[in-house]
């Protein structure tokens, strides 16, 4: 029944080993070497430029006026011109020959032949202490006058405090003996300038070298920003401050000049609590451009006593020094000044570009003409007023103003040929270059000679008003006659002729 059987074994070959062996092949691959080289780039010179779009106000008008020669004329233009040409030319010729209007003058406003004193403002506590008025400035609205008190005859450090007073002349309740606003200042104020757009801001320079901006709308503490005694600030009295329009439209910086030969440009930082030094200019005798015809002597610092901005060229400013130098300077000068570094945050530059004939004695005041690009007038302790052209070394005209010092000179804002000068004898002399004679057209003297007139300022909003500050602590506001304030039709061309003269 059961028998043994032997079965054959079944062999299954291993596929696994074979597949593995079959799949194994070795190959090699290698990427080619990557070539690396090192190179350096360095900028040798950099220049920065900026562009700004202007508001598109006049774009459409400019497009309208594009007179493209290829465009055909509007219809009927030729016929219209043919019709009117003859009559127009006839009228033009007749007008050029006519004498009908010779000497014909119309009085739109009441003709006033007198110069009269409108107000005589004083601050009793300043007068008691015998303070002098060092600077006056009208606000941009033309109704407020700000005056700074101090002393002009000081040589030493002093710890006297002084005042800045403002009066609003258009108020009914004007009291000449009491200022509308009195700001107490710890030292004497040597320079003052009201902001050209914002009536509440006043910039001042102090005897200690500080530059302050007061905000008269803040009753608590009028000091808005102050430079303080840092490495950046001046160490000597600040003789002039001015508001300068900055590159960004609508913003202004404060330019201050001190007798140590420094002119600094400050901007108010965005938090409105500190001054930031924007640019610094220092004057050193060696870097002043010399003209070969005159030698310059003296110490190496050039103490700046007066500063003037040119209303025509925002890059130019004029500087007068204690030694009588008169320099034309540029804001964009790049040469560094040869002064020892004192840890200032901005390197000072030497801005002097051109040197005019030096005067004998400090130059107290310079003013650029608002009617002609190239003219400016300067005065100093030699008692002469020099009319210069920016293009020539020698003055075009020298007028004797007084026998003593002349403290300030300013062009009239309405008559191109008129300027006024405040003298040490107390008079204000007003000169009219259109007159043949070289004597003053008018002399304003307010009784009691012996008190020098230290500063004057025309009111730009109401050009008939002239404010004069004197050493007896009073500020007089004068109303000028019509003759001194109304422009003649030929004045601009006369001024042009004077400017084009070549000095002998």
């Amino acid at each position, binding site marked *: 029944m059961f028998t043994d059987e032997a079965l054959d074994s079944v062999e299954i070959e291993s596929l696994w080993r074979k597949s593995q062996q079959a799949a194994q092949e070795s190959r090699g691959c290698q990427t080619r070497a990557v070539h690396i080289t090192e190179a350096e780039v360095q900028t040798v010179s950099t220049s920065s430029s900026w562009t700004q779009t202007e508001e598109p106000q006049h774009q459409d008008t400019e497009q309208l006026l594009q007179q493209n020669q290829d465009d055909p004329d509007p219809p009927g233009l030729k016929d219209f*011109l*043919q019709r009117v040409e003859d009559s*127009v030319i006839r009228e033009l*010729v007749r007008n050029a020959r006519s004498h009908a209007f010779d000497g014909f003058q119309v009085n739109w406003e009441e003709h006033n032949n007198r110069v009269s004193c409108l107000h005589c403002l004083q601050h009793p506590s300043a007068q008691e202490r015998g303070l002098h008025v060092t600077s006056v400035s009208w606000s941009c609205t033309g109704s407020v006058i700000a005056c700074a008190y101090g002393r002009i005859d000081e040589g030493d450090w002093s710890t006297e405090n002084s005042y800045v007073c403002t009066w609003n002349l258009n108020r009914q309740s004007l009291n000449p003996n009491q200022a509308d606003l009195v700001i107490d200042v710890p030292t004497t104020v040597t320079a003052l300038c009201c902001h050209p757009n914002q009536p509440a801001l006043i910039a001042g320079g102090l005897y200690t070298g500080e530059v302050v901006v007061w905000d008269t709308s803040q009753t608590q503490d009028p000091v808005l920003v102050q430079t303080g005694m840092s490495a950046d600030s001046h160490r000597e009295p600040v003789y002039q401050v001015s508001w300068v329009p900055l590159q960004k439209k609508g913003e202004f910086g404060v330019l201050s000049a001190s007798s140590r030969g420094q002119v600094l440009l400050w901007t108010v930082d965005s938090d409105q609590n500190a001054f930031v030094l924007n640019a610094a200019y220092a004057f050193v005798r060696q870097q002043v451009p010399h003209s070969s015809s005159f030698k310059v002597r003296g110490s190496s610092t050039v103490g700046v006593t007066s500063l003037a901005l040119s209303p025509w060229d925002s890059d130019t400013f004029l500087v007068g020094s204690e030694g009588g130098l008169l320099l034309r300077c540029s804001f964009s000068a790049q040469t560094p000044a040869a002064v020892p570094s004192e840890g200032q945050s901005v390197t000072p530059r030497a801005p002097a570009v051109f040197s005019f004939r030096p005067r004998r004695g400090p130059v107290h005041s310079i003013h650029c003409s608002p009617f002609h690009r190239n003219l400016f007038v300067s005065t100093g302790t030699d008692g002469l007023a020099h009319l210069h052209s920016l293009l020539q070394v020698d003055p075009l005209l020298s007028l004797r103003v007084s026998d003593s010092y002349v403290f300030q000179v300013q062009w009239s804002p309405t008559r191109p040929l008129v300027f006024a000068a405040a003298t040490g004898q107390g008079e204000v002399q007003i000169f009219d270059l259109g007159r043949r004679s070289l004597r003053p057209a008018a002399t304003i003297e307010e009784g009691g000679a012996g008190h020098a007139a230290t500063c004057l300022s025309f009111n730009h909003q109401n050009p008939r008003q002239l404010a004069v500050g004197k050493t007896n602590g009073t500020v007089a506001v004068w109303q000028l006659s019509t003759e001194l304030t109304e422009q003649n039709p030929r004045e601009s061309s006369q001024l042009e002729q004077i400017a084009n003269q070549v000095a002998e």
Partner: protein
Amino acid sequence: MAEVEETLKRIQGQKGVQGIIIVNSEGIPIKTTLDNASTMQYAGLLHQLVMKARSTVRDIDPQNDLTFMRVRSKKNEIMIAPDKDYFLIVIQNPSD
């Protein structure tokens, strides 16, 4: 077209002429020898003045009409020749 330029040159060559502006009936300047800013100012202001003068003349006498207008000022004289479609404005300084 060259005649237009020639006519303007002839007028400009008269003694004392400071500038010429041609304005169309809407007050938009189409030809000028002055700079853009002054042209726009003159064109805008004088167009209104001429329309006012014309309406004044016609109110007084409806059969009358404005033929020429001269505005004399301290410094110069402005002459305006009006027409249906255009005005010609010439500024002259007779004492030059």
